C-alpha cells in the first residue's frame, strides 16, 4: 500500500490556439512517468480550466500556449484560482514564451516555465521537486513509479 496519492496533472490549452503537439507530447511523457493525466483539449476558457482543476482535485496545472497570448490568458487562470481559493495547486507553464516574460509569469504564481527544447527529464524532476515542497512529509501526491 502506497501512502502517496497518485499525482493528478491537468494539461490545458487556453484560448484560440490549436497547436497541441507540444501539449500532447507532454501528456504522453507524463503518462509514461506514472502520472494520472487529464488533458482538456484545445481552445478552452480559463474558467473551464479552473473548474476542471477543482472537480478533478488536480495537483499540478500545466498550461501550454504558442499563440503569444500567454500573458493575458495565463494571468486569468491564476486570477481565477486565487478567486476560488485554490492554494495548493502547482501552476506551471510551457510553450513559446519569450525570456522577458518568464519573470512576469513567475510573479503571477507560475512556479516553473518550460520553453521549447526542455528535456522531459528536466520537467519530471522539476515536478517531483515541486510536489515534495508542497508536501514535505511525503504523504501528499506523487507519481507512481512502474
Amino acid at each position, binding site marked *: 500500500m502506497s501512502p502517496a496519492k497518485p499525482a493528478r496533472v491537468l494539461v490545458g490549452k487556453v484560448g484560440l490556439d490549436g497547436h497541441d503537439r507540444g501539449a500532447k507530447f507532454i501528456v*504522453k511523457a507524463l503518462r509514461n*512517468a506514472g502520472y494520472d493525466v*487529464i488533458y482538456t483539449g484545445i481552445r478552452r476558457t480559463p474558467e*473551464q480550466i479552473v473548474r476542471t482543476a477543482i472537480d478533478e*482535485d488536480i495537483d499540478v496545472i500545466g498550461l501550454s500556449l504558442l499563440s503569444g497570448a500567454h500573458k493575458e490568458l495565463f494571468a486569468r487562470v491564476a486570477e481565477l484560482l486565487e478567486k476560488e481559493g485554490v492554494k495548493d495547486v502547482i501552476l506551471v507553464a510551457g510553450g513559446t514564451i519569450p525570456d522577458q516574460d518568464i519573470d512576469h509569469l513567475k510573479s503571477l504564481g507560475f512556479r516553473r516555465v518550460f520553453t521549447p527544447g526542455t528535456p522531459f527529464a528536466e520537467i519530471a524532476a522539476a515536478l517531483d521537486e515541486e510536489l515534495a515542497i508542497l508536501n514535505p512529509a511525503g504523504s501528499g501526491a506523487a507519481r507512481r*513509479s512502474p
Partner: protein
Amino acid sequence: MSALLEKIRGGDRKSLARAMSLVERASSEAREVKEALRLSTGNVPWWGFTGPPGVGKSTLIDTLISRIRSDGQRVGVIAVDPTSSLTNGALLGDRVRMMRHSTDLDVFIRSLATHRCEGGLSDATIHCARLLEVAGYDPIVIETVGVGQNEVDVSTIADICAVILAPGFGDDIQLLKAGLLEIADLVVVNKCDLPDANRLLQAIHAELALSSLSDEDTGEAKEVHANAPSHRVDVLGIEAISEKGVEALLGKLREQDAIARLPDRRQQHNRRRLLGEMRRSAATALERALGEGLSAPLATELINRVERGELPLDEAVVQLVSDGLSALNTDRRQRTTAG
C-alpha cells in the same frame, strides 16, 4: 467522518473533489468514509455505459448531459480510463468530450484511472458514485474504460447497463460470443451514419431473438439482467455527434430508471452491488497479499520445489494462498489494535 459527508451534502464542491481522492487510497480515514457512504446511499439509480474503445461513449454522454440538464436535473459522471500496466500512468481523456459542461455547477464530472483494477472499472468507482449521490446528483452516469469482450464489472454496480457499439467491429459471430450483450439492458448502435450500421442492428436483433429462444428452451430466467425476468432489451440506432436518436435513448433510459426506483428493485440492486463490491474487494485484498508474498522467500522456495518436481503446482498454490490469507489476518489485527 459524518462531518465530511455533511459538507458534501451541503454542496461543498471542493470537499466532494477531495473525498474522491481520499477513497482512491487505502488509509484508515478512507475506510471510515467508505463505510459511512455504504450506509447512507442506495436510493438513486446508476446508469452504466460500456462498449469498445472509440464507439463514442464519451460523446454520447456529453450529449445526454445537455438533455438531462435541460430537464433541470443535476447530473454526476464518473469516467474511467486505463492505467498503463507498464508505467502505472494514465491518460484520462473522456473529459475532453465533455468540457463544455465544466462550468455548469449542476454537472460534476470526475475522471478515474483503473489503477490495475481489471473488469472495466476502478476500485474507487463505486465509492465516487456514492459520493455523487450524497452530493445530490441524480442521475449518476458511469462510463467504463473502452472494453474488450468480457469486462463486465459495470453490470455488478450499475442499475441500468447500456452497451454502446458501432459498425466495423466484426460480424454476427462476435455477437454470439459470451460477453457484453449478456449484460445489456439497452444496446445502442452509435455512428448510424456509417454504411454498415443497419447490418449491425439486424445482427443484434437476430442475436437477442436467439437468446430469448434459448432461454425459453432451457426454462432459465436471465438473472444477470437488472429487470429480469420480464426484461426486454431495447435496441436503438443513434448518431451521438448530431444528437440523432438521443432523445429516444433518453426516453428508454428514463423508463428503466423509473422501474429501478421501485422499492423492491432498490433493495435487489443494492444487495447485488454489495455482493459485487465484496467480491472485488476480496479479490483485490488477496491479490495484494499474494503480490507481496510472491516476492517473498516462501515463493522462491515453492518455485524451487515445483521446478525440481518435489511439489505439484496445485499444492504450491494452496500454500501461497494460505500464506496470503494469514498476511491479511495479521494486517487486520494490527489495524484493530491501532484503531
